C-alpha cells in the first residue's frame, strides 16, 4: 500500500510518535553537550492538520520565526525543517556564543548568529535522523542547513508545498526543549517523500 498522510492508522501514528520521541531525545542530548548544561525535553506531540489550519497551530502566520531547512537522501529521502520562535533562537545563540541577550526580540541576526543557528539545525536534525537510522537500519544523509528568518507562514510554505503534492494535510512534530525554567519551543517538520514513509514502516516491520 502506498502510504499517505490522509490514511494514517493509530499504529502508524504511534510509530511516528515513537521515532519523534527518540529523535527529539537525541537532539536534546546533543544540545545539552553543546551548551554544556542540562536540557530536558517534553514528550513530542505529533499532529496532523489541514493546510489552512496549520499556521494557527504553530502560532500565527505572521509571527517572525527562524527556520532551518535541510534535505536528506540515502535509503530514504525528504526534507526536514526546524522552526524556532525568535525568542528561543535568541536564547540559544546567547547560550552558545556567550552573548548578552540584548536584542531579545530583534529578528536581525548577525552572520555569526546565523552560523550558530545553522549549526544547531545541523546537530538537531542529525540527531533526529540518527534516531530514524538506528531505529530502522536505513542510511540517511543530511544536506547542509539553510537559514531563514521571516513570517511563519512563508517559511512553512516550503515543506507544505511538498506535502501539497500528495495531500491536503501535513504532519508536525512539536517538542519543547526545557532549559531550567525556560522553554525553548521547537517544531520539527519532517517530510519524507511518500515512498520513504513506506520504506520506514517496512523496515520497522509495520504493515
Amino acid at each position, binding site marked *: 500500500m502506498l502510504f499517505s498522510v490522509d490514511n494514517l492508522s493509530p499504529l502508524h501514528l504511534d510509530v511516528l510518535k515513537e521515532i519523534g520521541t527518540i529523535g527529539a531525545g537525541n537532539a536534546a542530548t546533543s544540545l545539552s553537550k553543546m551548551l554544556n548544561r542540562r536540557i530536558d525535553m517534553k514528550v513530542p506531540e505529533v499532529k496532523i492538520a489541514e*493546510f*489552512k*489550519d*496549520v*499556521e494557527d497551530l504553530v502560532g*500565527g*502566520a*505572521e509571527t*517572525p520565526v527562524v*527556520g532551518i*531547512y535541510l*534535505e536528506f537522501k540515502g535509503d530514504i529521502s525528504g526534507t526536514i525543517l526546524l522552526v524556532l520562535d525568535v525568542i528561543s533562537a535568541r536564547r540559544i545563540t546567547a547560550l552558545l556564543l556567550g552573548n548578552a541577550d540584548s536584542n531579545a526580540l530583534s*529578528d*536581525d541576526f548577525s552572520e555569526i548568529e546565523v552560523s550558530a543557528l545553522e549549526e544547531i539545525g545541523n546537530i538537531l536534525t542529525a540527531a533526529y535522523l540518527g534516531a530514524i537510522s538506528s531505529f530502522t537500519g536505513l542510511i540517511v544523509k543530511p*544536506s547542509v542547513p*539553510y*537559514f*531563514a528568518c*521571516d*513570517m*511563519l*507562514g*512563508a*517559511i*512553512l*510554505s*516550503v515543506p*507544505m*508545498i*511538498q506535502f*501539497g*503534492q*500528495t*495531500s*491536503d494535510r501535513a504532519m508536525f512534530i512539536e517538542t519543547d526543549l526545557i532549559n531550567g525554567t525556560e522553554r525553548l519551543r521547537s517544531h520539527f517538520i519532517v517530510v519524507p517523500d511518500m515512498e520513504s514513509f513506506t520504506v520506514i514502516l517496512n523496515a520497522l516491520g509495520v504493515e
Partner: protein
Amino acid sequence: MDRIIKVGMADLNVIAGNGVLVTLGLGSCVGIALYDKTTKTAGLAHIMLPSSKLIKNNQNKAKFADTAVESLLELMMKMKAKKERIVAKIAGGAQMFSFKGSASDFLNIGERNVQATIEVLRQHGIPIVAQDTGGNYGRTIELHAANGILVVRTIGHGVKIL
C-alpha cells in the same frame, strides 16, 4: 469597521461592496487578487502549486493556479462581476531559502508558481495590472473591495500599495 475575511493556504474567497480579503504569510505560494471595479467584486486565492494537471490528489481547487483562477472567476461572475472588466494583481512566489548547487528543482517552486499564474491569467484574458513577486521574503496581502487596492506587507522589506 470593514469586514475582514481570512484566506488560508490553499483557500480562496470572494466579497463585494466593502470588506477586506486577507492572506497572511505568503512564501513560495502566490496570492491571486482579482477585481471588478464596477461591481466592486473582489476575489483572492492563495495557491500552492502551478497546475492541477500533474497531480493526482487535486480535489482542492484553491491549491492550484489553474483551478483557483477558474473558481474565482465563477464565484465572482455569480456576484454580477463581468469577466471583461476583471483585472488581476499578484504577489508572492518567493524563494525562502537560498539554495546553492545541487538543490532539487522543487526549490524553484515560487518562480514556477508565478509563471503558471501569469500563463493562466493570460489564457483567460485577464490583464495583470500590478505584481510584487520573487525575492526571498514573506508577504501578507490585503485586497480591499471598496477600491481594489492590494496592500503588501513584509518583515524588513517595507509596505507596498498596489
